[in-house]
């Protein structure tokens, strides 16, 4: 049995809106993050992937449900009680411009974790910071520079250095390469995988870019409107896609290969993602699903294995795709028979 580092149990996160409605950002998610793996979290804008990640890191208080880290429930811990655990769980954010204070020198930004946790000071801290800078591929002599003097890719390296300062066990990477150009993106992805190997890190890797997630992840969870619709080992998810939404997402991804682009049948979903304040009844995807049937509108499918001999491939769908099924010709049938 693999070691569970972090466990999320039926977590819900709701946000109030001005009109007294409630946005259900995360609507009952359970999953486990195994030690040493990279768990990918994909989905489109507003699917709740970032909110879920913030619940995992206890940056948000959950509305209901629980989060466990190394067997200890952290859901209700106070800020003070949470502090020692902050060393173990770190976050790398998307925006390398917005997440670094422009008026502070890079050395002091990266040194913050040491200062906050009272670990090293003075010359010792400086030495540790310079080691970190070297580790992530920054020139340690640039210790006294300001963030504005670095490019986007270098800034993201600063974010990585800061997250790794205290040798965390779990790093939550929230769209860490989405703001970067493709040639720079590849540098950062390689850096993250080197560091994972060297320090035995566990990653939760959030991205809207399926090709990036496919490359880095051991397992992938696909989210839609606050729910996980499919969760599987990477090769299973791509090779044996079960959920119609996952298939549509894969098919919508532009491929940098003219022959494939010309020959494949694209599934183009109709409509927009429904509002999270008033999600559809039953299966949340039924309003856009090419395979939707009447019972999909009434009851909510549970995330469970399609085949009993593949318990780690779970899908929340009443009519999961069979092997080789062509979704591009499917038509929804919502009439009562």
């Amino acid at each position, binding site marked *: 049995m693999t070691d569970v580092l972090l466990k999320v149990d039926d977590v819900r996160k709701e946000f109030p809106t001005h009109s007294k409605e409630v946005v259900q950002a995360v609507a009952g998610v359970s999953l486990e993050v195994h030690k040493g793996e990279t768990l990918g979290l994909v989905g489109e804008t507003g699917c709740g992937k970032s909110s879920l990640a913030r619940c995992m890191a206890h940056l948000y208080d959950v509305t209901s449900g629980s989060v466990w880290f190394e067997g200890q429930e952290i859901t209700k811990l106070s800020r003070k009680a949470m502090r020692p655990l902050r060393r173990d769980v770190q976050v790398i954010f998307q925006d390398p411009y917005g997440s670094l204070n422009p008026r502070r020198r890079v050395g002091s930004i990266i040194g913050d974790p040491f200062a906050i946790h009272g670990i090293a000071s003075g010359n010792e801290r400086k030495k540790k910071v310079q080691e970190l800078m070297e580790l992530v591929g920054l020139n340690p002599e640039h210790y006294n520079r300001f963030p504005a003097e670095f490019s986007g890719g270098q800034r993201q390296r600063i974010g990585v250095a800061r997250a790794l300062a205290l040798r965390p066990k779990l790093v939550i990477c929230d769209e860490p390469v989405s703001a970067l150009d493709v040639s720079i993106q590849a540098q950062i992805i390689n850096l993250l995988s080197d560091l994972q190997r060297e320090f035995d890190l566990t990653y939760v890797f959030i991205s809207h870019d399926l090709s990036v997630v496919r490359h880095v992840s051991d397992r992938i969870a696909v989210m839609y409107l606050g729910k996980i619709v499919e969760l599987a080992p990477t090769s299973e998810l791509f090779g044996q896609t079960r959920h119609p939404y996952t298939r549509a997402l894969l098919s919508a991804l532009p491929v940098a290969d003219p022959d494939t682009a010309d020959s494949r049948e694209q599934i*183009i979903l109709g409509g927009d993602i429904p509002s999270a304040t008033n999600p559809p009844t039953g299966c949340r995807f039924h309003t856009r699903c090419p395979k939707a049937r009447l019972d999909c509108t009434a009851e909510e499918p549970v995330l469970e294995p399609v085949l009993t001999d593949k318990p780690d491939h779970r899908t929340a769908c009443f009519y999961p795709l069979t092997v080789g099924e062509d979704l591009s010709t499917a038509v929804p049938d919502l009439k009562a028979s």
Partner: protein
Amino acid sequence: MALLEVRDLRVSFDTPDGTVRAVRGLSFDVEAGQTLAVVGESGSGKSVATQTITGLTRGAKVSGTAYFDGTDLITADPATLRRLRGAQIGMIFQDPLSSLHPQYRVGWQIVEMIRAHDLTIGKQAARKRAAELLSLVGIPRAAERIDDYPHQFSGGMRQRVMIAMAMALDPALLIADEPTTALDVTVQAQVLNVMRRLQEQFGTAIILITHDLGVVAEMADEVVVMYAGAVMERAPRRDIFYRNHHPYTQGLLASLPARSGDRLTPIQGTPPSLISLPKGCPFAARCSHVFDKCSEPPPLADVGGDPRHQSACWLPHDVNEAVAS
């Protein structure tokens, strides 16, 4: 003659830190009914070039020519440009929310646009046309939604509104600057589909500016690859992907996660500053094939004797085979 012929376009901006040479000698043709993709990373000059052509760059030093249907857009007076923009050249940008006025109904904005160019059309007729356009780009219940404000539309729907507006006067050329970059992939697929459909229906030429090689593979007929303000390689779509010549093109493709095995092969280093560019090839500092000759600027020359396929690199041009990919 091509619909749009750009020759030796140069654009620079004076800043307190020095002169930023954003576009350095760009030439390309756009044929009627075809899609030209201009691909490059941040700062490659791909957006500045098209903004200059349509007269939207201020305070820039510009030289070169851009003949559109017999008119040089670079030297044209503002009134001529204003007449062409919208009527002959439609434009859509990355962020549809900031391109639409938040306090006016979308229908009103489209009507205004139609009436600004067509002085004979009546209000009711223009409104009817606006509703037709909205349903043409796939907005459901267009006749009702015409009276909604931009914030009542989702990102993908707003981009459709922008396309409707850009297509309102049946322009010969549509310039789309990162039109789907801010959209989710399933919505991106819808919007690209709308663009393809309209192109088939109306024979519109498209300049598609993008950083996404996947979008290029899906949409382009011809491709121009830009780096540090200059063209590195130009070719028909399949040549760019299967018979590319320039190490930068190869590096871009090799950086894609979908095209690699366990480990990605990034391009090392970062792009040069546009204020202090190297004398020779701008890509030399990051190129794995660099040799003595690269300290001189390489000219754009035919690859394998094909004038439609050109590369600005000193490596031999007679080998017409994929080197890396």
